[in-house]
């Protein structure tokens, strides 16, 4: 039994790293967008479209990294369109996000049909567990380079938001549109760029889904990770570094089901697979109306008002 527990433990660590990567990218993208005072609920669409585009480009070109870039580009298109539409008066940004979720999913399923069968080149993982004799440790520490890219991005974003002029501008637009306008900042442009950049990151997160883990393209690939990331950002209180920790926590919850299945526990696996949703809901209930969250929220954000 204790070896089983150990297997579950290793599988959860490895799983947390693998499952958290798409969460991390979407959360960083959403964090940047929300810092500029706008919410994009459509990142689920970016994630799915990114996964499909990455797989298709990787299959046709033979280069998975080209696939990652193409996924980011697809995400930019959706994000920029979201940013542009939301500047129109009287439109509802939450509903626009839902529409992009449905359009992105539709386009991905439409163009992705021929790519369900063929096998595309994947992103190679780095065997950073090779120091260990234990095959489970080695297995768990097959880490995709995108995970490290995500961590580095989180630090970069955290630093840039605090210390650069661009970061200050984004924060000002997100905290007080009126003062930004008084300073002569083009609010719509800043938000458009922040949403497009957020879309890029969500697209890259999708590329991880199809090119690394689970590592194939099918229509059930993403199930709400894009939306859970919105809750994750609120939980992380709009801090990119806390986004990393939150993503790891969500990843561990997501890895619970597969890890238990690995040791033969299958009874009630639907519940274990639903663990991330239950965790998200629990976190939302716990963190709602929290004073510190309210203080750190961008003032222009509609979802926390």
């Amino acid at each position, binding site marked *: 039994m204790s070896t089983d527990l150990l297997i579950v433990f290793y599988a959860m660590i490895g799983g947390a790293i693998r499952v958290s990567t798409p969460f991390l990218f979407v959360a960083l993208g959403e964090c940047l967008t929300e810092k500029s005072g706008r919410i994009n609920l459509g990142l689920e669409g970016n994630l799915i479209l990114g996964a499909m585009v990455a797989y298709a480009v990787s299959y046709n070109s033979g280069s998975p990294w080209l696939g990652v870039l193409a996924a980011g580009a697809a995400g930019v298109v959706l994000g920029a369109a979201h940013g542009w539409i939301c500047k129109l008066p009287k*439109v509802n940004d939450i509903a626009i996000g839902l529409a992009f979720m449905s359009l992105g999913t539709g386009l991905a399923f439409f163009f992705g049909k021929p790519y369900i069968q063929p096998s595309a080149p994947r992103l190679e993982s780095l065997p950073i567990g090779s120091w260990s004799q234990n095959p489970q440790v080695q297995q768990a520490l097959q880490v995709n380079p995108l995970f490290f890219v995500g961590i580095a991005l989180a630090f970069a974003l955290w630093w840039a938001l605090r210390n650069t002029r661009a970061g200050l501008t984004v924060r000002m637009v997100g905290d007080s549109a009126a003062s930004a306008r008084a300073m002569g900042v083009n609010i719509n442009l800043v938000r458009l760029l922040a949403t497009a950049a957020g879309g890029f990151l969500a697209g890259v997160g999708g590329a991880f889904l199809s090119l690394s883990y689970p590592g194939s393209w099918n229509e059930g690939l993403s199930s709400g990770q894009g939306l859970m990331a919105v809750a994750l950002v609120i939980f992380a209180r709009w801090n990119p570094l806390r986004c990393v920790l939150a993503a790891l926590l969500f990843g561990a919850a997501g890895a619970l089901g597969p890890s238990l299945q690995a040791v033969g526990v299958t009874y009630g696996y639907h519940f274990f697979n639903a663990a991330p949703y239950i965790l998200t809901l629990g976190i939302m209930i716990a963190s709602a109306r929290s004073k510190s969250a309210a203080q750190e929220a961008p003032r222009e954000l509609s979802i926390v008002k």
Partner: protein
Amino acid sequence: MSSAFPSDTTRARLAARLRQSLPDARLIEPAIIPLAALAAAALLFSVFLLILGKSPVTFFSLVWTGGFSSWFSIQNALQRAAPLILTGLAFAIPARIGLTLLGAEGALVLGGFTAAVTALPMQAAGLPAQVILPVMALAGMAVGAFWMGIAGWLKHVRGVNETISSLLLTYIAIAIASFLIEGPFRDPGSANKPSTQPLGPDLRIGEMFGSSVHWGLAAGLVLAVVLWVVMARTSFGFAARMTGGNLRAAQGQGLPVGRLLLTCCAIAGACAGLAGFFEVGAIHGQANASLAAGYGFTGILVAFLARQNPLAVVPVAILFGALDAAGGLVQRRMEMPDATMLVLQGFIFLILLVSDTFYGRLPFLDYHSSRDRT
């Protein structure tokens, strides 16, 4: 303004008379803007098809053939419209009080499952169908109402964002239903596709008046009318719409905001649960994974296109039922994937929301007339 300050030039006078001859702007806007948005989405989708080298003319004539042209295709469209009316109402009613609830799919699945399993012991006890069917429907509605009520309750007591929480609740609902269907309530006879025990033939909900359309459509029509009356003509509906318009003002007036929120969520959940009951009773005959067919999500689009008006939900649901019915035909004849209709729906959804920006800004309408204010 035009009536208060008569213009001097003939042209301005003519323009003013033209505006006055049109019906009131606030009455015709909700009709012409969504219709124009539909047309624009069809146009954009045609461009999409042309880029792919497919013919838009063939596409739309196939949609006509598959959805409207014959009695057979109309029945097919109405059949699919029945759950869409109910899920459309499930989004529209909470939307009037300012809630964006995505939980209809979960309430539908749980409601359908509950209906399927409450029937089993009563069926075994030999009760007549006239007793079992209403109990099934009520049980499905109650569970749906409870499930949607959770999102409303969390919103009210903790301020939890209802859009995200209701979507999470949908995933959790599907997990619960899958667990129960594959575990304790599994019919040992369902080998390949885990299902609950099938309902007896006398428990199958029949078709209306010799057509192939089941009674869910009639239930949807009745509920749409009832809910329209409730929202437009009762003090409850007024209080709900006032809360949706300005929460603070409603609280200031001493309205029971929490109770209103919960009631709207419960009505929505009951509608979705009833849709689940009809899916089980009229289509599947048992609860299984086919219940999560996406009606709950399409209902969101239906409600938006109907501008959250319960009566308008009916024609919009029939339109989407027809699109759904034509999907198979388009797939076979044009060799296009089944996601084609998803793309079209995405275009419609997006253009429709963009069209919100034109309310109050149409150049040919008179927004300043005071004719009906007196």
